[in-house]
Protein backbone atom coordinates (compact mmCIF):
# COMPACT_ATOMS: atom_id res chain seq x y z
CA UNK A 1 0.00 0.00 0.00
CA UNK A 2 2.81 2.35 0.88
CA UNK A 3 4.33 1.41 -2.46
CA UNK A 4 1.24 2.58 -4.31
CA UNK A 5 1.06 5.72 -2.18
CA UNK A 6 4.60 6.59 -3.25
CA UNK A 7 3.80 6.31 -6.97
CA UNK A 8 0.27 7.67 -6.72
CA UNK A 9 1.10 10.88 -8.57
CA UNK A 10 2.64 8.90 -11.42
CA UNK A 11 -0.51 6.87 -11.83
CA UNK A 12 -2.60 10.04 -11.72
CA UNK A 13 -0.43 11.60 -14.40
CA UNK A 14 -1.38 8.63 -16.61
CA UNK A 15 -5.04 9.37 -15.91
CA UNK A 16 -5.42 6.33 -13.67
CA UNK A 17 -7.28 6.43 -10.39
CA UNK A 18 -6.49 4.16 -7.48
CA UNK A 19 -8.68 2.59 -4.82
CA UNK A 20 -7.87 -0.10 -2.30
CA UNK A 21 -10.36 -2.79 -1.33
CA UNK A 22 -10.57 -5.16 1.63
CA UNK A 23 -13.30 -6.89 3.62
CA UNK A 24 -12.55 -4.72 6.67
CA UNK A 25 -15.04 -2.43 8.34
CA UNK A 26 -14.86 1.30 7.59
CA UNK A 27 -13.32 1.85 11.04
CA UNK A 28 -10.51 -0.64 10.43
CA UNK A 29 -9.97 0.71 6.92
CA UNK A 30 -9.79 4.27 8.15
CA UNK A 31 -7.06 3.22 10.58
CA UNK A 32 -5.09 1.76 7.69
CA UNK A 33 -5.70 4.82 5.53
CA UNK A 34 -4.45 7.13 8.26
CA UNK A 35 -1.55 4.93 9.29
CA UNK A 36 -0.18 4.85 5.75
CA UNK A 37 -1.45 8.32 4.83
CA UNK A 38 -3.09 6.94 1.73
CA UNK A 39 -4.20 9.55 -0.81
CA UNK A 40 -6.81 7.17 -2.28
CA UNK A 41 -10.00 5.66 -0.84
CA UNK A 42 -10.38 2.24 0.71
CA UNK A 43 -13.52 0.38 -0.31
CA UNK A 44 -15.07 -1.76 2.40
CA UNK A 45 -16.41 -5.03 1.04
CA UNK A 46 -17.76 -6.08 4.43
CA UNK A 47 -20.34 -8.42 2.85
CA UNK A 48 -17.55 -9.97 0.74
CA UNK A 49 -19.70 -9.58 -2.35
CA UNK A 50 -17.10 -8.11 -4.66
CA UNK A 51 -14.25 -10.41 -3.64
CA UNK A 52 -16.52 -13.41 -4.22
CA UNK A 53 -17.93 -12.15 -7.51
CA UNK A 54 -14.44 -11.37 -8.80
CA UNK A 55 -12.99 -14.68 -7.63
CA UNK A 56 -10.64 -12.96 -5.16
CA UNK A 57 -11.97 -14.47 -1.95
CA UNK A 58 -9.72 -16.50 0.33
CA UNK A 59 -12.14 -18.47 2.50
CA UNK A 60 -9.42 -20.20 4.48
CA UNK A 61 -7.97 -17.32 6.47
CA UNK A 62 -9.40 -15.15 9.21
CA UNK A 63 -12.99 -15.99 8.36
CA UNK A 64 -12.52 -15.04 4.74
CA UNK A 65 -10.44 -12.22 3.34
CA UNK A 66 -9.47 -10.76 0.00
CA UNK A 67 -6.73 -12.37 -2.03
CA UNK A 68 -4.00 -9.84 -2.74
CA UNK A 69 -4.41 -8.64 -6.30
CA UNK A 70 -4.17 -5.59 -8.52
CA UNK A 71 -6.90 -5.15 -11.10
CA UNK A 72 -7.12 -2.45 -13.75
CA UNK A 73 -10.71 -1.70 -14.78
CA UNK A 74 -11.27 0.29 -17.95
CA UNK A 75 -13.84 3.04 -18.29
CA UNK A 76 -16.08 0.53 -20.04
CA UNK A 77 -15.99 -1.58 -16.84
CA UNK A 78 -13.97 -4.27 -18.57
CA UNK A 79 -11.07 -5.93 -16.78
CA UNK A 80 -7.87 -4.78 -18.49
CA UNK A 81 -5.30 -6.41 -16.27
CA UNK A 82 -5.45 -8.71 -13.28
CA UNK A 83 -2.35 -9.60 -11.29
CA UNK A 84 -2.91 -11.91 -8.35
CA UNK A 85 -0.43 -12.32 -5.51
CA UNK A 86 0.67 -15.65 -4.16
CA UNK A 87 3.37 -18.21 -4.70
CA UNK A 88 0.95 -20.78 -6.09
CA UNK A 89 -0.41 -18.43 -8.69
CA UNK A 90 0.14 -19.34 -12.29
CA UNK A 91 0.37 -16.50 -14.71
CA UNK A 92 -2.10 -17.27 -17.45
CA UNK A 93 -0.41 -16.82 -20.80
CA UNK A 94 -3.83 -16.34 -22.39
CA UNK A 95 -4.50 -13.36 -20.13
CA UNK A 96 -1.16 -11.80 -20.97
CA UNK A 97 -1.77 -12.32 -24.66
CA UNK A 98 -5.17 -10.71 -24.32
CA UNK A 99 -3.58 -7.72 -22.58
CA UNK A 100 -0.86 -7.29 -25.16
CA UNK A 101 -3.38 -7.77 -27.97
CA UNK A 102 -5.45 -4.94 -26.52
CA UNK A 103 -2.38 -2.81 -25.78
CA UNK A 104 0.24 -3.67 -28.36
CA UNK A 105 3.77 -2.63 -27.47
CA UNK A 106 5.91 -1.26 -30.24
CA UNK A 107 8.78 -3.42 -31.42
CA UNK A 108 11.15 -1.15 -29.55
CA UNK A 109 9.09 0.19 -26.72
CA UNK A 110 11.95 2.31 -25.38
CA UNK A 111 11.46 4.60 -28.38
CA UNK A 112 7.84 5.03 -27.58
CA UNK A 113 8.37 6.41 -24.12
CA UNK A 114 9.98 9.66 -23.18
CA UNK A 115 12.83 8.45 -21.04
CA UNK A 116 13.24 11.34 -18.71
CA UNK A 117 14.18 9.70 -15.45
CA UNK A 118 17.54 8.36 -14.48
CA UNK A 119 16.05 5.23 -12.91
CA UNK A 120 14.29 4.26 -16.09
CA UNK A 121 16.95 1.77 -17.04
CA UNK A 122 15.18 -1.51 -16.41
CA UNK A 123 16.23 -3.90 -19.15
CA UNK A 124 13.20 -4.31 -21.33
CA UNK A 125 13.48 -8.04 -21.74
CA UNK A 126 10.44 -10.17 -22.44
CA UNK A 127 11.26 -12.32 -19.43
CA UNK A 128 11.06 -9.44 -17.01
CA UNK A 129 8.06 -7.92 -18.63
CA UNK A 130 5.96 -11.02 -18.89
CA UNK A 131 6.98 -13.42 -16.18
CA UNK A 132 7.95 -11.25 -13.24
CA UNK A 133 6.23 -7.96 -13.80
CA UNK A 134 7.36 -5.45 -11.23
CA UNK A 135 5.41 -2.37 -10.33
CA UNK A 136 7.63 -0.41 -12.68
CA UNK A 137 6.72 -2.78 -15.50
CA UNK A 138 3.04 -2.49 -14.72
CA UNK A 139 3.35 1.27 -14.75
CA UNK A 140 5.22 1.10 -18.04
CA UNK A 141 2.60 -1.16 -19.62
CA UNK A 142 -0.17 1.13 -18.45
CA UNK A 143 1.67 4.21 -19.63
CA UNK A 144 2.20 2.64 -23.03
CA UNK A 145 -1.42 1.70 -23.39
CA UNK A 146 -2.56 5.17 -22.38
CA UNK A 147 -0.10 6.82 -24.73
CA UNK A 148 -1.58 4.70 -27.48
CA UNK A 149 -5.12 5.44 -26.39
CA UNK A 150 -4.43 9.16 -26.65
CA UNK A 151 -3.04 8.76 -30.15
CA UNK A 152 -6.16 6.93 -31.36
Amino acid sequence: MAEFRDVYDDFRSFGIQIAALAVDSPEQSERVRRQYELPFPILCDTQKEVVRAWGLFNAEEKGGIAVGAVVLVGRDRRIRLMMVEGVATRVRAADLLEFFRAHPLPANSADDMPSNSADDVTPNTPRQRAIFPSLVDVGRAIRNSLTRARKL
Partner: protein
Amino acid sequence: MSEGQKLRVGALAEDFTLADSVGAPRTLSSMLSDGPLLIIFYRGYW
Protein backbone atom coordinates in the same frame (compact mmCIF):
# COMPACT_ATOMS: atom_id res chain seq x y z
CA MET B 1 -6.98 -20.81 -2.40
CA SER B 2 -9.74 -18.56 -3.63
CA GLU B 3 -13.35 -19.35 -4.13
CA GLY B 4 -15.15 -19.03 -7.42
CA GLN B 5 -13.95 -18.18 -10.86
CA LYS B 6 -11.57 -15.27 -11.27
CA LEU B 7 -12.81 -12.58 -13.58
CA ARG B 8 -11.03 -12.97 -16.88
CA VAL B 9 -9.25 -10.17 -18.64
CA GLY B 10 -11.75 -8.66 -21.04
CA ALA B 11 -14.72 -9.63 -18.87
CA LEU B 12 -17.31 -7.04 -17.92
CA ALA B 13 -17.24 -6.39 -14.18
CA GLU B 14 -20.59 -6.16 -12.51
CA ASP B 15 -21.22 -2.73 -11.09
CA PHE B 16 -21.02 -2.38 -7.31
CA THR B 17 -21.47 0.18 -4.57
CA LEU B 18 -19.36 -0.06 -1.42
CA ALA B 19 -18.83 2.31 1.47
CA ASP B 20 -15.38 3.82 1.76
CA SER B 21 -13.54 4.18 5.04
CA VAL B 22 -15.49 7.29 6.02
CA GLY B 23 -18.81 5.71 5.11
CA ALA B 24 -19.35 7.46 1.78
CA PRO B 25 -20.87 5.24 -0.94
CA ARG B 26 -18.59 4.60 -3.90
CA THR B 27 -20.03 3.15 -7.09
CA LEU B 28 -17.70 1.55 -9.59
CA SER B 29 -19.38 3.02 -12.67
CA SER B 30 -19.30 6.54 -11.19
CA MET B 31 -15.62 6.26 -10.33
CA LEU B 32 -14.90 5.05 -13.87
CA SER B 33 -16.48 8.15 -15.37
CA ASP B 34 -13.29 9.92 -14.23
CA GLY B 35 -10.99 7.39 -15.88
CA PRO B 36 -9.67 3.84 -15.51
CA LEU B 37 -9.43 2.54 -11.97
CA LEU B 38 -6.68 0.44 -10.46
CA ILE B 39 -8.13 -1.55 -7.56
CA ILE B 40 -5.69 -2.90 -5.01
CA PHE B 41 -7.25 -5.90 -3.26
CA TYR B 42 -5.47 -6.46 0.03
CA ARG B 43 -5.73 -8.88 2.90
CA GLY B 44 -6.86 -6.29 5.38
CA TYR B 45 -6.12 -4.85 8.73
CA TRP B 46 -4.05 -6.96 11.11
